[in-house]
């Protein structure tokens, strides 16, 4: 077992005929991910990957033909919200949205709609998921991680690659790596993934990679301190980032005190988490 994706994942790709979509679909298939179809409106009936992968006009028709249980979205930002609504309405229970730059108000509508439908969303603006040796659903380079018992959850993209690579160099493998994305309004947060890792028999330890802004790390720290039995090591990026020039008071009123790296590190250490000074140090703390 692992979390979210494994060899039973039947994946479709929304935006499969675009540059990025096609490039990463090729990579995912080469890794061994069970990609069962693609969606590009207006290109239904075509085939990609040398005639091996069928393209459909809609998520609904793709799901009916392939019995897909997950979708990954590579469409441009302005179409991403629609793609997520479409996937949810077509009955896909797991959506991974790689697209960067989705408007925040769109994301609030998407998130609230998906919650009502009980659909799980990973991202947007994320590198996706990797269960080493079983499924790569996203853009994390497959060869930088090996199978193992460490769950990895991160808000960042390339910083996550650093950590997976440092783990591999020490012979340490990942159960599943989850990139939850760095946007202010996203689908799945640290807390959700920590709960999944806590209940996953294959995961024995957890690495969490956070960054400045918001209060998700603080909420995760509360959960780790009170409910989690598995050891957690962490890193928080942005310890030296300067504060932005703020306008208006609303941000200060609703996010009073939260968001700095120092606050997050303090909260995590109070919960018994070992916090690394630099990313290559994280695996050595477990």
């Amino acid at each position, binding site marked *: 077992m692992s979390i979210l994706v494994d060899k039973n994942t039947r994946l479709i790709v929304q935006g499969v005929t675009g540059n990025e979509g096609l490039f990463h679909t090729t990579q995912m298939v080469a890794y061994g991910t069970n990609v069962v179809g693609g969606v590009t409106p207006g290109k239904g009936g075509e085939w990609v990957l040398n005639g091996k992968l069928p393209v459909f006009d809609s998520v609904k028709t793709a799901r009916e033909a392939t019995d897909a249980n997950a979708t990954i979205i590579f469409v441009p930002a302005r179409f991403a919200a629609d793609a997520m609504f479409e996937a949810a309405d077509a009955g896909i229970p797991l959506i991974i949205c790689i697209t960067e730059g989705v408007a925040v108000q769109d994301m609030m509508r998407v998130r609230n709609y998906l919650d009502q439908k009980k659909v799980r969303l990973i991202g947007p603006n994320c590198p996706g998921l990797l269960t080493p040796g079983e499924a790569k659903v996203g853009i994390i380079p497959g060869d930088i991680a090996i199978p193992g018992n460490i769950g990895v959850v991160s808000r960042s993209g390339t910083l996550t690659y650093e950590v997976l690579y440092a783990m591999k160099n020490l012979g340490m493998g990942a159960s599943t790596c989850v990139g939850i994305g760095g946007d202010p309004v996203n689908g799945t947060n640290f807390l959700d993934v920590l709960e999944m890792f806590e209940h996953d028999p294959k995961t024995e330890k957890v690495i969490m990679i956070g960054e400045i802004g918001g209060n998700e790390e603080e909420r995760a720290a509360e959960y780790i301190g009170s409910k989690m039995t598995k050891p957690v090591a962490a890193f928080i*990026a*942005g310890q030296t980032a300067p504060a932005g020039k703020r306008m208006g008071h609303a941000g200060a009123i609703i996010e009073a005190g939260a968001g700095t790296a120092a606050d997050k590190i303090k909260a995590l250490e109070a919960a018994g988490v070992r916090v690394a000074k630099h990313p290559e140090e994280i695996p050595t703390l477990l």
Partner: protein
Amino acid sequence: MKLHEYQSKTIFSKYGIPIPKGRVAATAQEAKQIAEELGGRVVIKAQVLVGGRGKAGGVKLAKDPAEAAQLAAQILGMEIKGLPVRKVLVDEASAIDQEIYFSITNDRAAKKPVMIASAAGGIDIEEVAAKTPDKIIKSHIDPLLGLREYQARDVAVAMDLPREYMKDFVKIAMGLWEVYKATDATLAEINPLVITKDKKMVALDGKMMIDDSALFRQPDLNEMRDTDEDDPAEIEARKYGLSFIKLDGNIGCMVNGAGLAMTSMDVIKLFGGEPANFLDIGGGASAEKVTAAMRIILTDPNVKAVLFNIFGGITRCDEVARGILIAMEEVKPKVPMIVRLVGTNAEEGRKLLENANMITAETLADAAKKSVEAAQKGN
């Protein structure tokens, strides 16, 4: 993107929110003329994209056009938190009975818009929030349903608004919700929303921030962008789709990915150095982007060394290496370059840079140490 007060209030007015009469001026003469048109007392308000201008002396009351000219001249010469004042708003003065705070913003934790109101509005609202949080009323808005009038009524009751103003307040709240939605705002704030002595509700001040990711569908707002207050290097970076922030140190950084870019800065600091900038070249960095990034970093005379930290994923290291070579040829940097390439096509990338006279590093910690050493030698 931040909007000025005068821009925000113009938008408010379009959605039925009452604002004072007034116009923006760039010279004392213009300010005088506007004061003459308005007649009576006017308020001269510095237009800068930063908070706290009232406390910094950027808002003054003038009793006649002559004084308006004099005060405008004074404020137009000011700097507020490092930003020079280039425009002033000249508004008719209001006789104020009560100041209310009212805003709609994004609550990222709740994943919903939130309406925030307080009967104790004005410049000390953050202190009110910290010391007497029960005076701050918050009400979340379902993004799928939108703001319902009953929610605005409930907020009015919760802050003890005199009942005679209930209707006006609901109209303003619904108007501000429409503003927030139509402009893809991340903040639409009225502070203060005043009740005047002649019993009118008016938005005396306005602040708005617009979601940069939504600007593709906000062409009118995009044109309102005031780049006067941006660092020229940041404007240049934006042209190439680079995310750049200038800092005070001497080690230039070029990194792919925001999290890794922040981390590279952190690690430089950990080993005793100071980063000169934050720069995320993004995914799929082309030679053109790399060249632009290098040029931007090297325009800063403080830079004594440059660190390239590239972890190839979507970005291919050989492509970045080619970009670095072209950039070196064009920019001819005189400071040491430290490069670390890992991930997709890293091997090919390293080979390309073999004869480029660069310092190479294996790990991020190693790269940071070497950068700090090189920068110290250069000083």
